[in-house]
């Protein structure tokens, strides 16, 4: 029992260390002043990794039950759907005019 607790605590410390390293990394990369696309990709990727570590290990999501995974999976899908729907509808500035105009004026 005592070993389990010690092992658990060690695990949390390892994750803490990783989170600190990743925080350092994300700040460090920002000082490189990369162009927008790689900067966003790297920044979001690091953030996703940190979030995954917190979720899996601190929030005990790793090894959680299906009845928790399903609503979260649905939520993730809907979030992506919202942002995609929003950008694809209003993001002419992002995607040019390749999606066509609702009303042509010719």
């Amino acid at each position, binding site marked *: 029992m005592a070993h389990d607790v010690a092992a658990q605590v060690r695990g949390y410390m390892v994750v803490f260390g990783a*989170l600190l390293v990743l925080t350092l990394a994300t700040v460090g990369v*920002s000082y490189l002043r990369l162009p927008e696309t790689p*900067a966003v990709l790297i920044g979001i990727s690091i953030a996703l990794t940190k979030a995954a570590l917190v979720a899996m290990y*601190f*929030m005990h999501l790793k090894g959680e039950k299906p009845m*928790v995974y399903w609503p979260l999976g649905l939520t993730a899908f809907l979030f992506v759907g919202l942002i995609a729907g*929003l950008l694809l509808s*209003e993001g002419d500035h992002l995607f040019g005019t390749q999606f066509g105009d609702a009303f042509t004026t010719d």
Partner: protein
Amino acid sequence: MEIPYTTEVRPDTGLTNPKLGIWLFLASEVMLFGSLFSSYVLLRSGAPTWPVQHEVLSVPLAALNTVVLIASSVTMVMAWASLAPHAAAVRDRLRSPNARAMASPAEASAEADSLKRYRLFMGLTLLGGAIFLVVKAIEYGDKFSHHLYPATNNFLGLYFTLTGLHALHVIVGMIVNAYLWGPGTRMWRSEPERFANRIEVAGIYWHFVDVVWIFLFPVLYLL
């Protein structure tokens, strides 16, 4: 009248009601912050010009806050870990055949130790939250003193709205944690497992607040 599966897990789902409940609540919170992040992406991508974020805001202060909040997440999970293994032992003692309400000296000292460790870690979590809010207040004050307000432009509007809503969530979390650090510990004597589960559930909420900041930091300060 007892609601089933408040403390014991339901066999087919493997969950307690509070554990399922907090994840459902967090699903809605993901959609809330997700909607706000979506708004940020739309407004920023559509803007002809956008301030250089790290020149307007203080990256060092925010980096400090990031570390503080992550550390408070660690102390929060340590607070739970201090209680959880012992909770089962206390429960067994309370339920044993000769109903020993009084612990043996060794048991009593182990139980007191775990409560002390819990109090230490939960206290540190509260301290982390307080430091976070103080730094936030310093940041806000600094902006205001330079006449930078939410109405100044959409970047600042989004900055204040997103971090403000996040700070509100921090405050709510701290209120819950303060209760669980103070008067809430009464439950440790009578229903230790239920109390430990409460700490876990409060922890899951607190970690979520940390996760939101993990995204806010790069999006608002670095990119």
